[in-house]
């Protein structure tokens, strides 16, 4: 599907359009962040400035500064960049493994299915937060380990969805046709089955991206997140929450930022699902 056709497709749902706009707003900001006339996100300027306060050099702190005197606007935008990069990477890797396991479990079946499903059930029996805490407490809080933890927590769920779709798709005629042409199992899984399973997977990916963003920020909030000093929305809330009585903006700004980004992904997923049900 080309870009223009995708846009036409999405424009069928108002919800999806609003969601897309919210997501694009943050993505564009994150991409062009280095080009914007912002202060460095980690440099101390003047502490506890309210939003719209005037800076020493005559510029304006649009969103104020935090307790260490760092520009909030810059921190929120660079925080968006950071969380988007890590969340996309983590979700992408979780999808890679989830799809791989789901295809094998669904298409090959037999013992492979038994083993993969059992491992997934064990992982799914952990409440996700416990899985995160145990993995990160054991391995340490680095970006790589967070990606690893997200993969462990999400891949089993993705595997279940893919497996279900594959079980349905593998009884279709075009799969039989490919089998009688003598195509390899690898080819059939990747070329015949996977592209036809994309609809529900795209919807799920939007939801999961939103959820991964929450997860990464939540880990930052409880002190198991990406290492400082680079801005992290969760950490920003955790650090400034006790100071809410006289400088509430410091925690409110990142709270609104994350809510709007996640809302964007959720609306997009909802809209896409609505459109696919309508057809």
């Amino acid at each position, binding site marked *: 599907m080309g870009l223009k056709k995708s846009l036409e497709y999405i424009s069928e749902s108002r919800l999806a359009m609003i969601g897309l706009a919210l997501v694009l707003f943050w993505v564009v900001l994150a991409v062009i962040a280095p080009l914007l006339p912002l202060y460095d996100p980690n440099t101390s300027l003047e502490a506890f400035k309210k939003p719209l306060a005037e800076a020493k050099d005559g510029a304006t702190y649009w969103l104020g500064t935090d307790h260490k005197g760092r520009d909030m606007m810059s921190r929120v935008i660079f925080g968006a960049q950071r969380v988007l990069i890590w969340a996309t990477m983590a979700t992408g890797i979780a999808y890679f493994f989830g799809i791989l396991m789901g295809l094998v479990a669904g298409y090959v079946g037999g013992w492979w299915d038994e083993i993969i499903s059992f491992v997934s059930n064990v992982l799914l029996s952990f409440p996700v937060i416990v899985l995160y*805490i145990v993995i990160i407490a054991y391995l340490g809080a680095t970006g790589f380990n967070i990606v690893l933890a997200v993969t462990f927590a999400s891949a089993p769920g993705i595997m279940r969805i893919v497996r279900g779709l594959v079980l349905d798709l593998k009884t279709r005629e075009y799969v039989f046709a490919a089998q009688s042409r003598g195509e390899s199992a690898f080819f059939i899984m990747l070329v015949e089955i996977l592209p036809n399973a994309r609809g529900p997977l795209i919807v799920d990916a939007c939801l999961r991206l939103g959820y991964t963003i929450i997860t990464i*920020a939540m880990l930052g909030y409880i002190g198991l997140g990406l290492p400082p000093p680079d801005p992290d929305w969760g950490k920003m809330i955790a650090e400034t929450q006790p100071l809410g009585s006289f400088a509430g903006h410091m925690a409110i700004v990142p*709270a609104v930022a994350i809510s709007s980004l996640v809302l964007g992904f959720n609306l997009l997923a*909802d809209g896409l699902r609505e459109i696919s049900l309508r057809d």
Partner: protein
Amino acid sequence: MVLIMTVVSLVLFSLFETDKLAVAGKVLGPYSTTEQREIWLEKNDYNEPFVFRYAGWAGNAIQGDFGQSIQLRVPVADVLWPRLANTAILAVVVFAVMIPLSLTLGVLAGLKEGSFQDRAISTVSVITTSVPEFASATLLSAIFVFWLGWLPGTSAMTSGFRLDEIVLPASVLIIYGFGYIARMTRASMAEVMTSPYIRTAILKGLPYRRVVFWHALRNALITPFTVIVLHLNWLLSGVVVVEVFFAYKGFGKLLLDASLFGDIYVIEACTLIAVFVAVASQYISDLGYTLLNPRIRFK
């Protein structure tokens, strides 16, 4: 269920206690010498084969003996149960409000698909599910604690149980959680309302009220039931965040503190309990689903 618990406990035990010297190092502190650690290992029967150690540990755990907390210097059970009880109080309050609220909203939305009330309820539930707990906690406390000054900002319960201290933590969890259940209820209700037997009931001339309450609800509430039971598992993530935010002395905070400190016996105990609750709720939900829905009753 027993199989999964065995596998989980085995994984957990080998993850944290395969390296014996590291365990001793955690207990005796980073400045203990290797000899001291070896003496401690000998004293505490750590030099037995792995299988025996695991069996002993699992046996004690089943009887509620999880060893001694490294950080707090008291038996793990002494801190674990009161903390779990505090979280249970929070969970009871949350469920007591969230279930009636989300079921009512879900049923109202599902009654007429695409109507104004459906769209309004659905939109609100998407928005509330998009606001993570730490964000809504920030916003709520900005309004009710710092601006209006109606509610206390921490819920440490230092002077006994107080109702006003539980309002904010519970509201945060309810706001994040009700949307999902409401949406499930809505989908289930909408499906039931379009089914032939409802059409028949309406065409027979039964009052609409009776059709909804007597015919539709009974089938529409099967799916939400399982979702609600499974929600226990989901609630825990929020509980950790909320307990940290409001300094509520519960189970989630205990697990988090233990893992930040490296208190392996507490981590093991908390994880086992959490997984047990999750697996048990899964089991109850499966069981309940089979009881409520005769179509999938197995022979």
